[in-house]
């Protein structure tokens, strides 16, 4: 895990929710991209909840989900939303405010 130096609170726990709708290619890609990202950048300090709106449609309104896939960062505050299949790792890291990312 070299190349990563988390500034500030290195022990901050990331509570993430990923909303998908069925096993679509976009959803599967998003899940895979997220898992990779967390493994690399948030080892041991993240929890991921994957919600399939096909099965639980009533949960969509809770986090104001419109686009699919949507990644919601619940912790640490404030709430953040990232939409798309998370293919652009850079944008996700910026969006999740995972600091100190170096190459």
């Amino acid at each position: 895990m070299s190349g990563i130096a988390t500034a500030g609170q290195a022990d901050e726990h990331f509570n993430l929710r990923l909303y998908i709708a069925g096993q679509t290619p976009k959803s599967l890609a998003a899940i895979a991209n997220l898992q990779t990202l967390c493994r690399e950048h948030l080892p041991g300090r993240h929890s991921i909840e994957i919600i399939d709106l096909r099965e639980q449609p009533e949960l969509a309104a809770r986090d104001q989900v419109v686009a699919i896939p949507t990644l919601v960062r619940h912790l640490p505050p404030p709430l953040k939303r990232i939409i798309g299949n998370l293919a652009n790792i850079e944008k996700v890291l910026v969006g999740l405010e995972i600091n100190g990312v170096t190459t």
Partner: protein
Amino acid sequence: MFSSPKAAGEAIDKSPTGIAGLDQVTFGGLPAGRPTLVCGSAGCGKTLFAMTFLVNGAAQFGESGVFMSFEERTEDLATNVASLGYDVAGLVDAGKLMFDFVRVERSEIEESGEYDLEGLFVRLDHAIRSTGAKRVVLDTIEALFSGFGDSTILRAELRRLFAWLKARGVTAIITAERGEGQLTRHGIEEYVSDCVILLDNRVIDQITTRRLRVVKYRGSAHGTNEYPFLIDEGGISVLPVTSAGLDYAVSSEVVPTGVPDLDAMLGAGGFWRGSSVLVTGAPGSGKSTLSAHFLDAACKRGERAMAFVFEEAPAQIMRNMLSAGIDLRPHVDAGLLRFEAARPSLYGFEMHLTRMMRDVNDFDPQVVVLDPITSLRGDEVELQTTLLRMVDLLKARGTTAYFTSLTAGDGTITQSDSGMSSLMDSWLSLRDIEASGERNRGLYVLKARGMSHSNQIREYLITNSGVHLVDVYVGADGVLTGSARANQEAIEAAEAVSRAEEVDRRQRALARKRATIGRQIAELEADLGAEEAEIEALGRQADLREQVLVGDRSAMAARRGAAE
């Protein structure tokens, strides 16, 4: 009104909106099972329009609805429309309506890679399923354009959404902002093409008029004009404009004018029921008093009457009419008479007419008075066509309409009056007659379709027992009114007196003559009697002399006999 709403070959199912007037314009409502686009600039009433469609669907037509809002929070929406008399909360509790506020905030969203709007579909699908909705509103879907950066994806998704809504068979209203050079700012009309309704809010001469137009309606006939519509405490109402079919039923019943002398001037003894009456007159000529008579008479017959007044407050009218011996208050208290007062400048005249038609539909009066129509301001041609609509709508209802119009004092007929004339069945003209330093009031029947009528100009007086007509003297010098008339009356009265005196004198002379002759007869008879008596006396003397003579002769004979 409109002829058969479902013409032959009309294949489209309609979903009634329950908005007064709109269902007539669209011959039954919005296309059922298809999306309809409602566009207009800010403050046009798009949200209210959509909400009305849903609430009416749930409350009147047994169709549940889903309101997906992209702009206002659910609580705000419910509060906003509660002021218009919609019990949204009650319908939500009953499970007939469902709100979903979709908040899209650009600043909170980061985009990374491909996405679609499946979340929106899932939410909509969930809401439709859980309420069994037949009606869906998306308000204002264009808000999505500010929320997502990739408009290519967005457009593709919107196309998919409308196709999906159509496949679901729900009747949907999608609202959108008015754009420059096109109907909507983001060209939504490309995707929703079954029915497009445009709402407009125009300010002319500081007066706002809301208008509605059905831009297109695929597969159905529709009214193509711009129709004024109204948003007030009664919700939305649209005034259908071109309902001017000349096929209304006519009545041969007569509505008295409330002034018996005036009834006598009209061949039928009043106006025909369902006809329209115009009363023109100068300021202070008694137009309002005549209309008060008309209202009073209607209420006394037990009919409902409605008066739209633009110049005075109802309380002031009632007080003023008391001085003419007309007490309208009991009719108001009994619910037979309703005043609707509004300043002319409050709305545009089309708005006034929309409001009036709604009130007329509510109250269902047999007679309606508009006092005065000249207060309604606007373009001459527009005013005339709009009044034509009003006249037609009232005629279609069989309501007798009584319009007053202010004219110049000299009784000249202005252009607008002659324009109005063709709409009116009867026309009473009140005019000032100025002579000998006085202003007096004259009335005549200018026209009365379908009945003979007096050709006289009649002077009338407004007394403390109402309007009374008096005979007018027409001589070589023209019409005599007021004190000139009184003078003429005095002269005629004096002549009558002198004629009576002459007769009396002649009669007395005759009586005297008769007495004289009687006396002469008596004298002659007395003479005759005297003569008779004299002759009789003479006769008696003759007899006596005869007897004496006979006695003398016999005595002489006796004496002569003794001597022999």
